[in-house]
């Protein structure tokens, strides 16, 4: 009996409570879809917050419109276009891959390539400078002196 109260009872109670919690987190797929679309739209009165996260009146209205249109069977693209038609590309958190928006997408990789190119060019030119500073070929007279010195060293047996 003691064992039952101390160990089995708490385990039973805990398992019951976890079951209740599990029931609560069951989410509505429509609500999820509304938030998915709202996350891609800028709340136009709060500058850089997505519609999904904003509590402003306009964002709430926009979420209501998204929900209504989803229930009416409209697709995500159609709903996004509805807002773009009224609020402009500004309402999209990711700029469109056309027009001015294309510049935003292409400029960073272009700059990165340019940086790589200039780095390679810089290193190449530095290598070239080294070749230029290497000594000029020896004159015939100097080479003759080296030969004589080596010969003298061999004859005196000091080599190795």
């Amino acid at each position, binding site marked *: 009996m003691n064992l039952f109260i101390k160990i089995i009872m708490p385990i039973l109670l805990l398992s019951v409570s976890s079951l209740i919690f599990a029931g609560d987190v069951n989410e509505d797929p429509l609500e999820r879809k509304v938030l998915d679309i709202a996350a891609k739209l800028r709340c*136009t*009165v709060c*500058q850089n917050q997505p519609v999904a996260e904003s509590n402003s*009146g*306009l964002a709430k*209205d*926009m979420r209501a*419109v998204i929900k209504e249109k989803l229930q009416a069977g409209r697709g995500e693209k159609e709903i996004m276009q509805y807002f*773009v*038609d*009224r*609020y*402009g*590309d*500004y309402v999209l958190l990711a700029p469109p891959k056309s027009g001015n928006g294309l510049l935003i997408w292409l400029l960073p990789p272009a*700059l990165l390539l*340019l940086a790589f190119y*200039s780095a390679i*060019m*810089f290193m*190449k*030119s530095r290598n070239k400078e080294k070749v230029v500073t290497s000594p000029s070929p020896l004159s015939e007279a100097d080479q003759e002196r080296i030969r004589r010195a080596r010969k003298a060293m061999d004859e005196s047996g000091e080599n190795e």
Partner: protein
Amino acid sequence: MIRHIWWVIIPVLVLLFGLLAYGLTSNPKHIPSPLIGKAFPTLQGKDLNGNAVTLGIVDGKPTVVNVWASWCAACRSEHNVLLRGARRYGDSISLVAINYKDELSNAKRWLNQLGNPYQWSFYDLSGRAGLELGVYGVPETFFVNKQGIIVEKISAPLTDKMLADGIALMIK
């Protein structure tokens, strides 16, 4: 070779700093409306007296559509501009309103106390008509020519000059 690189890097830097300067000096609240050049949508609803109305350009007259609310402080200063404008341009244009997310009694009291420059007001309690028009907040003003095309949209309290410029654009 190194010297040639500068011919590329310097223009790119100038371009980047130019974009940065443009971004920092331009007003982030000024967003050009995609509705300019488009037809004004037809909206059905009720006016402040509860009568069924259609907001759309039907009488072939250039129309100024002003979005306002009694809770909007900036609308108060704008109201005098609209009262003057209604007197000055009343014959050549229509001036109608969208009352945006407002308490009906507050809206009526506002018009009684401050004067009513509008021919009538569309009552948009839910903000749905505002959303249909890409409204960010109040006050906002649409200038619609007699063909029903939106020629200008101002997302700020109007001044006498802005009103005159907008009207000049729509009766052109």
